[in-house]
């Protein structure tokens, strides 16, 4: 059972466009939702996160939109840059447990 789902599996955008990555979850106890960015040969690194008490979190070109009722969230990357090309993982935790459950990831390619 996939607790955290991501779509699309891969996404290609032109430099300067907005990339939208989607995520949904099933477990109602999840209350913390980080997005991790991973480059080849490296471990995932925290990009931005949101808690379930908020519906939006912004950090520079990266914004999370969160819909608790629908159990969905999305990551928007505005003015995409070739350096943003990476795999992005949506994750979730909750219920007092710091264990993160990860989605399958979205591979983003930004074409110059």
């Amino acid at each position, binding site marked *: 059972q996939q607790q955290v789902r991501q779509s699309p599996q891969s996404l290609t955008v032109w430099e300067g466009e907005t990339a939208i990555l989607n995520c949904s979850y099933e477990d109602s106890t999840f209350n*913390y939702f980080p997005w991790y960015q991973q480059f080849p040969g490296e471990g995932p690194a925290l990009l931005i*996160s949101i808690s379930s008490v908020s519906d939006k979190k912004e950090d520079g070109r990266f914004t999370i939109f969160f819909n608790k009722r629908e159990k969905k969230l999305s990551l928007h990357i505005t003015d995409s840059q070739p350096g943003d090309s990476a795999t992005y993982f949506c994750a979730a935790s909750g219920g007092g447990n*710091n264990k993160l459950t990860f989605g399958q990831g979205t591979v983003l390619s930004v074409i110059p």
Partner: protein
Amino acid sequence: NAGVIQTPRHKVTGKGQEATLWCEPISGHSAVFWYRQTIVQGLEFLTYFRNQAPIDDSGMPKERFSAQMPNQSHSTLKIQSTQPQDSAVYLCASSLGERLFFGHGTKLSVL
């Protein structure tokens, strides 16, 4: 701060051999996590420790896999009688709060 250190970066073993993977968490972090990453399964949780005590090992295969944290400066993941399906990148992460800091991982190849 060197971050989470994992050794070795790459390990090649023959089928049936034992593999021990090492992790040095960030100093002061109270929790250590182990994940396994493959193309097919993605990032799978294996186990985690808090203040050196095992908290949740629900992701660990019941046979052949074991993890320890003998002191606050390192943790080990041991795989006995390795099988080709154990080939993966094994990631260690440490945290003080909700944010996990990952190491570069150990790529295990079982021939």
